[in-house]
């Protein structure tokens, strides 16, 4: 406080803060340390994944054996089923995927990989997390209030969501909207923090083209989130006003337009998909380079492709609305932009595959997850072409084909991409190694049950089974697909059980895993130059200076097969390098 003002900001807040002992509350609960906050996001995401997974189990049981008593739940009526469908979607997208991939990875990796001691705004960072926690608490509360939880679908299409009498749910949807507004505010603040940190607090020598790709992708994700979420926050408030004050923004009586909500929702909703995708893609890229011992093939091309994807993601939203009744002349432009997004994404996939070429590939647990991610992501991306093509979309719109597609593509990101990152950065996060055989078992079981669950859903969808129906036996034309529904349900339960090896591994390794070296994977990026786990200010006295790009693996003329970003070579050879 008595310090004279300086021209340049110093890393003092953290350095000062790390001087004295801080109590339990400031260390573990209301911490401003980006690493602790990252773990908080991770814990919240994993906890909510249990809730979402339980809801998935209830749904699947009902679809396979309609109107039977579900073990661990009881009978589920149509109203409850709608509430479960709605909240499964909301929780998995907003309270699992976002906290883990953006919240946790972003918070943990951005300062450590760019060479900063913390986020630019540590208190804002803490606030972001706690607003998200309140938002998650609100969502969970809605299950226990009169009228039940929101049941208008995770997309909340008006007028179903706009008037309580259409669903019979009153405060469930009001609070669901409030939770959304809070969650968006939380990630808005988080995004501002990410961008400010990465733009202003990079270590000496860390130019933009020396940033690891996962940082580029987290930043692109933050930018498209910031650009797209504003309209939906406004829309959520307008919908809340429709419900509470009987305004009519989205109901036709009084001049509103239900399709306006669809546009506003998807204007955010589609970029949101890429907000989740990009960090997962980034995690897989980091891991690929480390365990092929090779530079990422076409580093700059991936950056350009990432930015192109981000731009295109803002102009494809109406592909969710091909049968909504929007002007049919506008459909083809959206169909074309949607299918064109495959070009930059395919380029990134090609460079991932080419990175393997002439590598020295180690099939460690993180590497297996990364390879699994690529394969499942290719599958999910390709089925997206069917949906992106407007005439084909007519047939499969709103069916289980859509469910199959986005589970394959999004879960490849959340499960495979998420576990890639978690197994890879676990030693840095917790200072201990995870058990490799258990990790590989977890991967194998997940890969098998994942495909047994989601692949047959494509067939069910082609057969015409609509999403969000509670009982397929009410339709004669679905009789042939019912055995598949049963098989999917059994596999889905298998997929949930397949997460047990992870939980055991995770809990056991935190407590009793082998102590991790600072750089157990012999990786070249900056986070591995800090101790495992890093102290509050990450590097102690001096922050590293960066001399080269992030993927200098197996460079010629160096004895080891990697060159850390911060290692100074002699002046002459440093000049030669870059």
């Amino acid at each position, binding site marked *: 406080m008595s310090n004279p003002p300086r021209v340049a900001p110093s890393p003092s807040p953290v350095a000062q803060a790390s001087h004295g002992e801080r109590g339990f509350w400031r260390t573990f609960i209301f911490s401003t340390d980006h690493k602790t906050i990252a773990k908080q996001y991770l814990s919240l995401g994993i906890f909510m994944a249990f809730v979402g997974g339980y809801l998935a189990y209830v749904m699947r049981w009902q679809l396979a054996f309609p109107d039977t008593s579900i073990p661990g739940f009881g009978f589920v009526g*149509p*109203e409850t089923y*709608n509430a479960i469908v709605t909240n499964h979607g909301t929780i998995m997208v907003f309270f699992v995927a976002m906290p883990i991939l953006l919240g946790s990875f972003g918070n943990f990796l951005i300062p450590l990989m760019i060479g900063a001691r913390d986020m630019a705004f540590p208190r804002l960072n803490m606030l972001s997390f706690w607003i998200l926690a309140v938002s998650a608490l609100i969502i969970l509360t809605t299950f226990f209030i009169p009228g039940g939880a929101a049941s208008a679908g995770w997309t909340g*299409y008006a*007028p*179903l969501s706009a008037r309580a009498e259409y*669903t019979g749910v009153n405060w469930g949807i009001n609070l669901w909207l409030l939770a959304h507004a809070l969650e968006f505010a939380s990630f808005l603040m988080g995004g501002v923090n990410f961008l400010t940190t990465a733009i202003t607090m990079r270590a000496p020598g860390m130019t933009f083209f020396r940033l690891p790709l996962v940082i580029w992708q987290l930043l692109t994700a933050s930018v498209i989130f910031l650009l797209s979420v504003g309209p939906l926050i406004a829309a959520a408030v307008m919908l809340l006003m429709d419900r509470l004050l009987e305004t009519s923004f989205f*109901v*036709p*009586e009084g001049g509103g337009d*239900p399709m306006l909500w669809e546009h506003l929702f998807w204007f955010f909703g589609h970029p949101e998909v890429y907000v989740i995708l990009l960090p997962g893609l980034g995690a897989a890229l980091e891991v690929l380079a480390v365990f*092929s011992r*090779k530079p990422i*093939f*076409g*580093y700059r*091309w991936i950056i350009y492709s990432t930015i192109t994807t981000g731009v295109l993601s803002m102009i494809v939203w109406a592909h969710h609305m091909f*049968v909504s*009744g929007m002007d*049919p002349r506008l*459909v083809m432009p959206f*169909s074309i932009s949607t299918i*064109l997004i*495959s070009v930059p994404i395919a380029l990134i*996939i*090609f*460079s991932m*595959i*080419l990175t*393997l*070429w*002439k*590598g*020295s*590939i*180690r*099939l460690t647990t993180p590497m297996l997850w990364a390879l699994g991610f*690529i394969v499942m992501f*290719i599958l999910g991306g*390709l089925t997206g*072409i*069917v949906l992106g093509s407007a*005439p*084909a979309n*007519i047939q499969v719109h*709103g069916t289980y084909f859509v469910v199959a597609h986005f589970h394959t593509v999004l879960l490849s990101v959340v499960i495979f991409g998420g576990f890639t990152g978690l197994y890879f950065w676990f030693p840095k996060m917790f200072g201990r190694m995870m058990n490799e055989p258990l990790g590989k078992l977890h991967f194998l079981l997940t890969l098998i049950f994942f495909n047994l669950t989601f692949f047959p859903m*494509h067939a069910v969808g*082609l*057969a015409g089974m*609509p*999403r*969000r*129906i*509670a*009982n397929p036996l009410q*339709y*004669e*034309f679905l009789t042939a697909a019912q055995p598949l529904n049963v098989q999917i349900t059994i596999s889905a339960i298998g997929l949930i059980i397949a997460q047990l090896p992870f939980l055991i591994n995770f809990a056991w390794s935190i407590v009793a895993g082998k102590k991790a070296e600072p750089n157990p994977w012999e990786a070249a990026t900056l986070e591995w130059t800090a101790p495992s786990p890093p102290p509050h200010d990450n590097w102690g006295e001096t922050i590293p200076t960066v001399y080269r790009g992030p993927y200098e693996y*197996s*460079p010629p003329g160096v004895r080891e097969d990697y060159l850390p970003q911060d290692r100074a070579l002699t002046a002459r050879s440093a000049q030669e390098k870059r």
Partner: protein
Amino acid sequence: MYLNWLPENISTYGGEIDSLFRLIYAITLAWFIVTVGALLSFVWLFRRRDGKRAAYITGDKLSQAAWLLIPAALVLVLDLWIDFRGGDAWAKVKLHVPPSEIQVKVTGKQFNWEILYPGPDGRFGTADDLQIDNELHVPVNKAVGVALRSKDVIHSLFLPNLRLQQNAVPGREFHAWFQATRTGVFEIPCAELCGFGHSGMVGHLTVHTAEEYDNWVKEQWPSPKGEAIPR
């Protein structure tokens, strides 16, 4: 083949959509095999061997980047192929609508399809209009125009066998059309979540032969002259 899961097509334009499915299926299956095949074989070929160092290839040089850019260009070409075929199919289904020989109004409401027939005079808003819930009767090989509305929330009229799906949105009226090529009874599920009765909201489309249809019309609109048949 996987596409056999598609229900039987009974509409004039459904073939367009199905052939698009087949084109996309062929292209995406080929890409899946090529990319995943390359990935798996690289993982096998370049597995770790003692004393063997990975090659230092950055992909920065244009000659190396060509390995990215040429396949990406191929993706672009195939995309455009799918887009152009899709554009044609879309135009046939949605834009070049033939004049309808039969007109009906379908209104979604929680949780029924209200189907309004204009009656023998072929005009709506007259005394012989007839509303039947959830039963849509049409003759085979005639272009049927559907004026689609909703009374409350968004519903979606889905006829899997016709390759027809169209949302019904309150406050708006949309026009859909089809021409069935085969007789039979087919289900009409609602494909957009519309409330607690969404599951089980299902109507039936009955496609009659010309004679059957005439008989059905006579049953619905018994007239002393027995000649009033909607055109």
